[in-house]
């Protein structure tokens, strides 16, 4: 399959993520949309890694493999973000009994 298919899929996922962040009001759904954006980047990295692997040939395997290792780093960082993010959302829920970001307007005035 040509690499374009993967690029289109990744960009579509990324756009769904961005639109979700911009229009949804529930903190957890926004968070899920952000995860979708990160996974779009993961998919793109793996697709490019395979593309480079074909172009560069097997004598430069390490160059093409770098991206796949990068994906693991992204997963680990995403997990770290989940722990902190969910803790923040729980903390907010304890104080307001809601996870709706529309409640968050106390700082405006």
């Amino acid at each position, binding site marked *: 399959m040509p690499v374009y298919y993967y690029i289109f899929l990744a960009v579509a996922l990324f756009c769904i993520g961005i639109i979700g962040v911009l229009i949804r009001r529930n903190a957890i759904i926004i968070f899920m949309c952000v995860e979708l954006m990160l996974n779009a*980047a993961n998919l793109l990295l793996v697709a490019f890694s395979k593309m*480079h692997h074909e172009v*560069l040939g097997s004598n430069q395997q390490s160059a093409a493999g770098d*991206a796949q290792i*990068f994906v693991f780093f992204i997963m680990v960082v995403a997990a770290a973000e989940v722990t*902190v993010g969910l803790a923040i959302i729980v903390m907010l829920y304890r104080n307001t009994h809601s996870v709706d970001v529309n409640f*968050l307007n106390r*700082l405006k005035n």
Partner: protein
Amino acid sequence: MNAIILTAVWGIVMMFGGVFFKSKATPKYWAIAGLTLIIIANCLELRSGEPFFNVDVKYMLSFNSFNLTFITVALASTLLFFLLSGRDIEKVGANVSEYFALIFFVLCGVCLAATFNTLLILFLGIEIMSIPLYILTGSDKRNLKSNEASLKYFLMGVFSTGIMLMGIAFLYGGNSEGSFFINNINVGDGKMPAMIAIGMVFIMIAMSFKVSAAPFHFWTPDVYDGAPTVFTSFMATIVKVGGFIAFIRLFENSFGKVHGQWQVLIAIIAAATLFIGNLTAVFQQSVKRMLAYSSIAQAGFMLLAIFALNDTAKEGLILYSAAYSLATIGIFAILIKMPDYTIQGFNGLGKQQPVLAVTATVFLLSLTGIPLTAGFQSKLFMLMAALRYGKQYWLVLFAVLCAAVSAYYYFKIIQAMFFKDADQHLGENTSTALGNDITPAFKLLLMITALLIIVLGVFPSLVTDWLHY
């Protein structure tokens, strides 16, 4: 290398030390002692070029005088922050040593962001820098404003991370060597390939989020306002300049040769940042919020370094980091002691606490950029760098105009301190509330900070000479 390893190790020491520390004041002394040692280790590395730890990093990190000087400046500002505001960190909540541990982890991220040589380390550095900050922002757990700021910062931060990763993926796909090294992304003088251009724009957006540049600055006032004031001081200084170092290193090494093609974008971002930051700061009633907008405005000035991208700009950026951090940490340390954060709260401070008022005046003058202060020299360096580039003079003119506007809102505080009397019904409370908290050591430190600002303003080469070791 010394700074990266030692800050991480000391963070862990502080984290587990929390179990053994009996008194609430102990963690502060441990943090100050550890940070002093780290600064010494880093200066030794800067002088000799030989780190204590010889780790083979496969060229993923690079250490030169520019990076190491910046790390020294960031660590020294943090030390000053600990000395001035250590007692206020203790007041935020019960878990004092954890706050210090998180600050050390942020410093580790700043060191990584200053020395990265591949996009992987850039990503990790920015994340290590941001994630502890989300926690610090929300550390006042019962306060709804702190919760809100924390959630906002978190969502915006993660969103910008997603954009940055997409940019990194496109840069990786676009360069023919399939490498994450920032030097390999460097395309020739010709036109940028489409994928590299897309990746560059994505990364530019993400970095603008991190340094709160104009179209992406909207989270800044809310987050800086809601966070506990001590941590706002840390966020607005060390973390912000850390973002700028990452920004300039990436754009110099990866896109330096195609400078002309993206420079207009940065010029527009810088102009918009200066305009919005300065204009909105004029209308603020709360000093904390005003300082948040003023930090956006100062970011606009620092963007001039990325616009010009020459040696003067790099020297200027280091000097700007030092001058801006010193002045902002100082003014925040005074602000924390005030009973209320409105401009009226500063009324009559000149009579009640002359030392505080005079040092605050020095800090504000430095932020404005009045001659004889470090702020003036650093702004001068930035403008000179932009002039040396030789194109787009309108930006320089605009920056000067904006600096003139900034004088208005900084001088409003000075005027309140010296030329207005304290409100009668508040007067008694204010002076007692102020008096309890201000020790002679605090006053002495403030005076030293103010003196440092003036010394740097007269001899800026004290900092910039380190670049040439």
